[in-house]
């Protein structure tokens, strides 16, 4: 019973610590964690944009069923950026900004 009480107390304390965990304060990787010495990801805004943009490109532009599957490269990047700007690929505004930032950073377009 003592073990159960201590376990319950630990769980309760852990749950109580959640309020400190406001949104936007945790690290992680693309579904797999991040290098971070504290509760914040520690990434700069530019790095965050690049990660967001890269993720969106992979999800909506180069996925297996997507138009540019294995076709995004130096030659096609400008065309992709243009299509992004024209509203193709079903991107939200913030995602569009991130994708364009990533394309500029990676391909200079």
């Amino acid at each position, binding site marked *: 019973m003592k073990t159960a009480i201590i376990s319950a107390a630990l769980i309760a304390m852990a749950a109580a610590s959640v309020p400190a965990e406001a*949104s936007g304060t*945790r690290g992680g990787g693309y*579904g797999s964690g991040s290098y971070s010495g504290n509760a914040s990801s520690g990434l700069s805004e530019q790095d965050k944009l690049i990660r967001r943009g890269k993720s969106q490109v992979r*999800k909506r532009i180069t996925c297996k069923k997507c138009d540019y599957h294995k076709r995004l490269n130096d030659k096609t990047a400008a065309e992709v950026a243009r299509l992004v700007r024209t509203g193709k690929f079903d991107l939200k505004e913030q995602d569009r900004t991130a994708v364009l930032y990533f394309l500029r950073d990676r391909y200079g377009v």
Partner: protein
Amino acid sequence: MSLPPSTNQIQRSVPAIAGGVFLASLAGLVLLSNTISPSVGWYVAILAGSSALVSVLLWRGGEFSARAVLTVAVLGHVIALFGQTIFEDDYYRFIWDGWRVLVAGTPYGVPPESLIDDPSVPASMQSVLEWVNYPEYPTIYGPALQIIFAATSFFAGSDELGLRVLFAGSALAVCALLLKRHSPAEVALFAWNPVVVAETTLHLHPDILMSLFLLAGLIAGRRHTVLAGVFIAIAAGVKIVALAAWPILLRLRPVGLVSALGALALLYSVFAVQGLGVGLDSTGTFATQWFFNPQAFELLFYLFGPDWGRLAALLIAGCLVLWFHARAQDFDSVPLAAIFGAILFFAPAVNAWYLLWLLPFALDRREWWPYAASAALPLSYLTGLNLEIFEMDEFAVHPIALRAEWLVIGGAILADLLRKRLSSDEVRAERTPIASPRVSVVMPALNEERSVGQAVKGILYANPRGLCEVIVADNGSDDGTARAARAAGAVVISEVQRGYGAACLAAIAAVDQRSNIILFMDADLSDVPEEAASLLEPIISGHADMVIGSRNSGRVEPGAMSVPQRFGNWLAPALVRLIWGARFTDLGPFRAIRADALERLHMADRDFGWTVEMQVRAAKIGLRALERPVSYRRRVGVSKISGTIAGVFAAGWKILFVIGREAFGDFDQAQQTGAAQAHSTVRLSGPVPANDDR
């Protein structure tokens, strides 16, 4: 008119329903994965929900055949082969690493980003390199994995299908190995768990390879010790966390540990000799900075901060790992699921695929928490990035998902603890009264001429119920010990090899075969013979198998026990209680035990470790042990142990050594070769007094 189905009919249909849910969930995941930007919410709902449902359906068992379990598992993996890896991108690194091994000899030391747009990298690999995550860091994956990645790359190039087939095959091989140790119904809990298929064939995580080699090592076990060592080494070469299982090697012959060390060294040396390291820098960064979806670490983080919190987590998890190893009865019962579970519970980064470390071993025990975890941890995919919530940190798990994980996993752990407590309360050992007690007194003696006669007469005069003989084991005395004992009425046997345990073993061998209780007492008059009855009574009445006379609970004459003795008699029982949960307050030599129980202990220690060995082994096999307070008088003559510093340290060290040996070794195995080992026991400090100062 149709009748409602009977319980048996429902029971028979459970496997079909569970298998159907399993296959349908995988089909659902595969279909979703083949759409453009699928919903992570639906994806996680299918994965977590089906994992929970299948586990619940399979928990009570049913009629399964091994062939059916394997066939359905194969179907599940085949379906997964048609899926796309979404919400995960680790596999690009695996393909990249494999290619680097083939072209450069080593994947270590060179960050992938340094080769982006490098003309030496072919276009097919550039498209892989494009998506390698954290390309600024050289790889951290172990040498065994690198060799496997290279082989996969050789056959499949940059196509991830190679990895899919490899991981599917590995998962199915684990299923096949599990069928050697478990019933098909139990194996289905692993083989049909959608998380297992998702995290191997669909999400492409290599962790299943670690489990595969560990399991192979366990199965090779004692019959093929070298092979077991090699397999367990490869497991550590796949994922370094497998080192947590390595204490298991101490339960095998030494060649097992030697072969494991050799194999691991060989694996690392293949890459180390190339001069670019073996990924330790990146691994260090991972260990000291990684943070994702923590469970109990969250609390430590907020209590102690990032650095001290990690240290605390490391210490707690490390102690738990050792504790689980120490409590295991033998090689085959080390709870690897709990060991890896403890690591995960306190780890700063917890991913769903880490469950692959422990799920194959979860079948060893009927506990809920591994299956609760496999239903809960997929929620960790609900990150800001995957949910496309800009207001959240991209790699933060949604707070609701995180709380749900804690609730489910914590609740399951709590429930398992309660179930265990309740079931242990239900088990009440039957009384085993002895109608015709026959007590043999064993009295080891070394140069006790002045006291042994009185000690023998004392116990004969006290005449506890059932007393039939007093055996004095003369441990090579060079005075008149034997003569005095014989004159007082004892049977005297001689054991020339010095050591308390050696003398006891010799005396036990000479005990009358009809005796059913053995009473041990010292020959130096420190024990009070009249108190023997209180030690024997619980055994005769059937309430206990062993009764220890506790000096700490009784009256100790001033000067009878030295400070180091008192400390040792506190420390050793504390360790015994910590590891095995048995409550003792003393290692006193005045004790009684049923003869049949003593036989089951396979006593082997030949010197200072005798008393603690008896108590530890009694705890390990679940003997009913009691303590009774006894008096302790100043001994006659000068102590040969507490009188010398070397004696005190030798005795203390030996007692701790025996506790360690019993914790991490297999005494039943030692017993098989006991006769050969017994006489090779190292003598600790020259002549060992037979009966003092324990």
